Structure formats: C-alpha cells, structure tokens
C-alpha cells in the first residue's frame, strides 16, 4: 500500500480543454509497460472497464489491439438494455500510445491515450477529440459514455414525478 495514496495528484481529472476536446488524466503506481498491458489485453481490460460500483456489467469484451484491429465491448446495466462500444485501433505504440475511434455514434470522438513513465509511476493522459463542438455538446446532453446507476434511478424517479426527460439532469 502506498502511504501517500490519498494525495490529490493520484485522482482522476476530467477537463473540457476546448470546444471539441475532453482530457482525462490520472497517475498510476506502476511502470508504463504494465499500465499499457492492462489496456491492451482483453482478459485484463475485462477486470476494470465495467466496475460494479457503476452498476455496469461486462457482457463481452473483444479487442484486437493493433493498427486497424477492431474492438467491441458490450455492457449491461441494471434495468436497461445492453450497450455496445466499438471501433477501430488507429495507432498502437507499445508502452506509450494508443489511438482508437469510437463508432457507436456517428459523431464519436477519436481517443488518444498516452502512457508516460515518471520514475516507476505512469502519467496517463486520455484525450478525446470530437469532430465538432456540436458533437461534444450532444454527447454531454445525451449523457453517452456512461451514466452511473444512481443517476439512472434519479432519472426514473423524476420521470415518475412527471418531469419531461429533456429537462432533468
């Protein structure tokens, strides 16, 4: 256990860097080589991509991690139908960089993940570039990319209260 594990630098950050870009960062306690491995082996991806705490469960997880290779993750969520996330790897540079497309929607982002060694730790930067401002705005409005279970329940409650879905968060 890292005694300083609670230090804020270890936390996940999400920022809208521009009209078309979201950037997610986190530092991991391990070398880039190992972090990269956990992103590129389906049997390892399965272990972390759909955490129970979010109410998701992974139905299937296929990833052919090489330039041009395809991936497809199917996720189930209590009380709603399964969702598929799929696309193609555009660039694969071992231990340092992954680029893939997100093709589940017409206006999906291109995701670039970089792994940077920092003395035994890894700075992970995930960059999502949308084709337009409108595409990112729509993604935000439509809550694609995963809505924690609690919010699904809250929405359901507001719907039963008679609120119109479009007006509630």
């Amino acid at each position, binding site marked *: 256990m890292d005694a300083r594990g609670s230090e804020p630098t270890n*936390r996940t950050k999400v920022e809208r860097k521009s009209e078309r870009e979201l950037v997610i960062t986190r530092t991991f306690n391990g070398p880039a080589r190992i972090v990269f491995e956990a992103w590129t082996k389906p049997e390892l991806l399965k272990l972390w991509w759909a955490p129970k705490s979010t109410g998701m469960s992974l139905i299937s997880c296929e990833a052919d991690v090489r330039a041009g290779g395809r991936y497809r993750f199917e996720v189930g969520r209590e009380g709603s139908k399964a969702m598929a996330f799929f696309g193609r790897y555009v660039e694969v540079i071992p231990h340092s960089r992954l680029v893939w497309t997100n093709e589940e929607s017409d206006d999906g982002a291109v995701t670039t993940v970089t792994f940077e060694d920092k003395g035994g730790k890894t700075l992970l930067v995930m960059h999502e570039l949308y084709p337009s401002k409108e595409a990112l705005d729509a993604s935000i409005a439509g809550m694609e990319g995963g809505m924690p279970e609690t919010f699904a329940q809250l929405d359901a409650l507001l719907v039963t209260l008679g609120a119109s879905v479009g007006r509630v968060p």
Partner: protein
Amino acid sequence: MVQYARTPFDASFAALSDATRRGVLEQLVRADASITDLADKFHMTLTGMKKHVVVLEQAGLVTTEKLGRVRTCKLGLSRLEEEAAWIERYRQLWDARFDELEKVIEDLKHKETINGRKRK
C-alpha cells in the same frame, strides 16, 4: 429538515428525501413559480421555502433566476451547470474504472516480482 451534501449523488438523494421538495419539483413540472408562490402553496414561511429551494438548486434539480424583486424557480440546470454536472459524472465513471485498473496493475507488478524471483 434542510441538509447539505458533498457529492452530486448525495445532493440529489438528500434533495429528494423530503416530501416538500418532491412536491416543489412536481409543482415546477407544471409551471415555473416564484419562491413566494411556492411558500404559499406549501403553507410555509418564505425563509423555510428558500432553504428548500437552495437544496434543490445545489443538487442541480432546480435553477432560479431573479427578475426585479421576484426569484423564479424552474426545473433543471443552466447549460454551464449541466456541462459541469456531466463532466463530474464522467469523472466519477473513469475514477471508478481507474480504481479497478490500479488493482490490476498491483497484481501484475506482484506477479512480475514472483516470476522474476523464479527465474533466478
């Protein structure tokens, strides 16, 4: 009872745990209303109703706008707040994933150490 909460989830659930506040939401589904209207409807003091509205506002369930001397309440968030709320939910999703990923990395590191020793 008026409660303040730390995370967006807590805030939403705390906000919805109270019958008056659920009533206020139901009312706002039908039409926007001023705090005075709402206080009258729920037979409360203006101060009491204001506190409830603040809780709903913090949970992002209600927005208010002051026009002259009247503060009008409506359902939902402003665009900026909506975006901030979405980014926070998205952050929580990735944070949950990365917490699990951290465990996978620990396991891999551990296995590597053991295998390294075996080879020697």
